């Protein structure tokens, strides 16, 4: 599964969590632009994990600040 396949799937998962309908680009940050609190992060991460059957541990989440970084990380995990 390449980045081009992963990206639209993440984009559709993020929709219900994007309450303020922020325009999403690779540089969009979860804490700053999307204002995700810790509970939203948990539900969002769980949705991504279920979609791709992967684990994104909190240690890994700490390294992911922007949308682009998430897509890259998931693409890499799915490939492994």
């Amino acid at each position: 599964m390449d980045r081009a396949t992963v990206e639209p799937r993440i984009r559709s998962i993020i929709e219900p969590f994007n309450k303020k309908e922020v325009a999403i680009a690779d540089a969009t940050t979860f804490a700053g632009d999307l204002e995700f609190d810790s509970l939203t992060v948990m539900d969002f991460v769980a949705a991504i994990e279920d979609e791709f059957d992967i684990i994104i541990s909190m240690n890994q989440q700490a390294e992911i600040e922007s949308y682009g970084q998430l897509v890259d990380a998931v693409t890499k995990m799915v490939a492994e």
Partner: protein
Amino acid sequence: MSEGVMQADQPQELEGEGKDLFSKFDDTIAMRENLLASGVEDPFSLVMEKVLSPTRAICNGRETILLGTYNYMGMTFDPDVIEAGTQALRDFGSGTTGSRVLNGTYQGHKECEDALREFYGMDHAMVFSTGYQANLGIISTIAGKGDYVVLDIDSHASIWDGCAMGNAEIVPFKHNDITAMEKRLKRIPEGAGKLVVLEGVYSMLGDVAPLKEMVKIAKDNGAMVLVDEAHSMGFIGEHGRGVVEDAGVMDDVDLIIGTFSKSVGTVGGFCVSNHPKFEIMRLMCRPYVFTASLPPSVVATAATSIRKLMDAKDKRAHLWQNSRRLHGGLTDLGFTLGTEEPQSAIVAVIMPDLEQGAAMWSALLSEGLYVNLARPPATPANMTLLRCSLCAEHSEEEVETILGMFERAGKAVGII
């Protein structure tokens, strides 16, 4: 698993006059000042001027019923407990001034561990200086680099801090969600060490974990299981061993962590286990090694209390009766509670927001009732809670008095 940090986090820009390392607390300081400006008594700096019994104290000059102490079994003024502590203070002095692994293990520490082994029917027991340190120490020590810790998102701060202190991969799941836990366990790479961390009773809402199902799934997936029984010891289960006993999974759980600061009625923490290599923890666990051991009087009171809790069937029954009556009475009055049925000795009353919660807390204190005000970030889902913890020493009449206080305060503040 993580790629690792290649550079340090970028510093936050410091703006304006007088900015220093404390500036990051400005928002919290402002929130506190706003709350106190509304005229409520400060919920986080109450002083107990005199303590009359496990259920009564003088606070701010007023005689107050205590309904937020975790003193579930009311052991703090038990005559045998007081006597044991007084004797130990005389015989062994006021403190050990040393680590458990150096000069800080006295006869009393061994007797306290004997009492715990007997209480739980387990092979090994290790006493820590606090419950916080027990979680911190055990979790950070056994789950190392490359291992996975799977834990409930509503876990206590000491569990999270134990995770933060170790180097394992941390994987939280939705509160009490059996399926979410199972999915995560199944996705862990083959061969990795796995630790599932659960609590018997979750202290914010007073709800119980479905341990029967969760422990089975954890074992089926090759994980070790640690259960924190801080809020159930002495009360839940036929012998007061906790939710683990009640759920019939004593033999499947690898480690039980608990505290002396609730039902036991003093301070300290412990871990009990049947693992054949458990004793090595005494040398590997830094929060056990690098701190002074509990004072002789504390371990003497703990050991005496633990032994009395083994046979405290009547007290357990009375505490259940209190919990059911308070839960039912508050529901009838129209309050929203954390659980539909009473599941433990904690009854959490959900407040509309922090302002009304603080006003209600203050009104109850004026009535002569102390409960815990719990607010984000300590609470799940950003709730403000008035958390009530019952005591086996609360009389039936006291519970009725408490309900009357809730009714008057609730109407005065406009919550019911």
